C-alpha cells in the first residue's frame, strides 16, 4: 500500500467514526465507550504480525507476545464488560410481568 492511499484510509475511517457516533443517546455512552475501547485493541493484529515476522528473534517474539497479551486483555475484557452492561438493558422486558 502506498503511503498516500493509507492516508486516505485514515481520513475516511475518521469521517466514518464521526458519522457513526454522532447520534447516540446518552444512555448508551458508557457501553459505547467501552465497546469502542475494545475495538481499539485491534493492535493485536500488529502484535501478531510482529510475532510472525520475528523469524526466531527471541526478544522480538517476547515483545510481540506481551503486546498481544495486552491487546487481547483490552479486547476480550472490553467486549465482555460491554456485554455485561448491555445485558442489563435487554433483560427488563422478560422480567416485567
Amino acid at each position, binding site marked *: 500500500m502506498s503511503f498516500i492511499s493509507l492516508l486516505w484510509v485514515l481520513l475516511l475511517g475518521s469521517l466514518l467514526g*464521526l458519522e457513526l457516533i454522532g447520534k447516540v443517546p446518552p444512555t448508551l455512552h458508557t457501553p459505547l465507550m467501552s465497546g469502542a475501547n475494545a475495538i481499539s485493541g485491534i*493492535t493485536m493484529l500488529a502484535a501478531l504480525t510482529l510475532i510472525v515476522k520475528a523469524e526466531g528473534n527471541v526478544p522480538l517474539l517476547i515483545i510481540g507476545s506481551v503486546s498481544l497479551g495486552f491487546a487481547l486483555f483490552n479486547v476480550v475484557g472490553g467486549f465482555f464488560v460491554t456485554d455485561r452492561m448491555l445485558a442489563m438493558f435487554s433483560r427488563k422486558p422478560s422480567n416485567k410481568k
Partner: protein
Amino acid sequence: MNLPVIIKFVIDLLAVLLLALGIKGLSKVKSARDANRLAAFAMSLSVVGLLSYYLGTSGIAIQSWIWIIIGSILGSLFGAILAKKVPMTSMPETVALFNGCGGMSSLLVALGVAIFPISGGQENFDFFKSLINEVSISVSIFVGAITFTGSIVAMAKLQGWLSTPGWTQSKVRHFVNIVFAVASLIAFFDLINGNTSSIWLLVIVSSLLGIGVTLPIGGADMPVVISLLNSYSGIAAAAAGFVVDSQLLIVAGAMVGAAGLILTQVMCKGMNRSLVSVLFGGSLSAQSTATSGSGEYTNITSCSVEECALTLEAANKVIIVPGYGLAVAQAQHTLREVTKKLEQNGIEVVYAIHPVAGRMPGHMNVLLAEADVPYEQLKEMDVVNPDFPATDVVLVLGANDVVNPQAKNDSSSPLYGMPVLDVQEARTVFVIKRGMSAGYSGIKNDLFDLPNTSMVFGDAKKVLNDLIGELKDLGVGEK
C-alpha cells in the same frame, strides 16, 4: 494477486464493514447487545484473516505459534476474569485500565519494530518510506505511552489509590509538562535523524507526560479524560497500522479515535466544561474556593424519614434524581424497593437522568438497569424538566451539582450555564445526603436553602431502608 492476498483482502473488507455496523448498532438500545457481539466477531474474523494470510504465504514458524498462544491465552484469561468480576460501579476505572493496556500494546509493537526492524523486504528501501516509518513509530510510541500512563493514573485516582498532590494544583505543573513535551519533541526529531537510542528517551518522557497531564485533574473531570484517552488509544492503533502497513488497523483505529473525540465533546457539554479547562485548569474545586467563600447556608430545613414517608404517601407524582452517591452507597436496589411500593400504591414514579449522572454519561442508566428499573421510567433531562412543576415530590439521592439552581440564576457562579434539572419547581424536594458537604465542584448548592427543600441526613442506603420500614407502617404498597 494470489489467492491468500485476495482472501485477506475480502476478510479485511468484511471485518471493517462489520465493525462499522457494530459501532452503528451500539447507538440503539435494541440492537446494542447484538452489535457488540458483531464487533467481537469482526475482531476474531480479522485475526483469522491475518493468520490465514501468513499461513498461505510465508508460513508461521512453530516458535511463533508458541508465543502467539502464550500471549493470547494470558491476555484473554485476565481480561475475561476482570470483566466478569468487576462491580458495575467501578466501570469507569475498568474502562481506563483496558484502555491503558491497548495503548501499551501499540507502544510495544512500535518499540519492537524500532529495535528489531522487521525483515520483510517486499518494498525497496527509500528515504520517503523510511521517514514515514520513523514518524509512525514515534507517534505510536508517544500516543501509546501517554494513553498507558494516563489511563493508569486515571484508574488509580478513581479507585482512590492516588490523591491529587498539592504541587499539581500550582503553576509548576505547566512548567513540568512543557519540559516533558519539549523533551519528547527533541527525542522525536533525534529519532527521525537516525539516532535510534533516543527511542528510550521518547518512551520515558511521553510516559511522564501522560502522568503529568492526568495527575492534576480532579475526580469529577476524570470521565472526560478517560474518554479522551480512549480516543488516543484509537490514534495509537492507527499509528501502529502505519508501522505494520495494515489498512484494517488504520480504519478501526481512526473510527475509535473519532468516536472518542465526539463522546468527549458530549461529556464536556453536559458538565459545562471546555476540554481546555479540563486539561489545563486543574481541579474545579481548587478554582472555585475563592469565589464561593461567601456561601454559607442560612435556611436549612432538616426532616425525619417519617415525615418524608408521609409526604411520599400523599403524592401523585414522584421524580427520583439519582447521582453517583447513590451508586457509591450501592443503594440502587434499595431504591427500587421503595419505588416498587410507591408504584403499587398508584403513585407515578419517574427517574430523572442528568446527562452526566453517575460518573460517565449513561453510567447511571446501567446502574439502575442492574437494579431492574424499567427502561421506560428513565427520563432524560430535556424530557423531564417541563414535568417538575406538576410534580409533588422530588427525591434527590446522591446528586448535587446537577440540581443546583445557581447554574440558571447566578451568572457569577462557576456552574453558570451548566444544564441542570429544575427540581426546585416541584412542590417538595427531599435531599438525602450524608452531610452538608459540597458536590464535586465544591460549590454551595442554593437548592438546600429553598423553603420547599428538606434535607434528610444519612447514608443513602440506610435512609432508603428506613423509608421502606416507614412506608410499610403506613400500609403503602400492601394490598
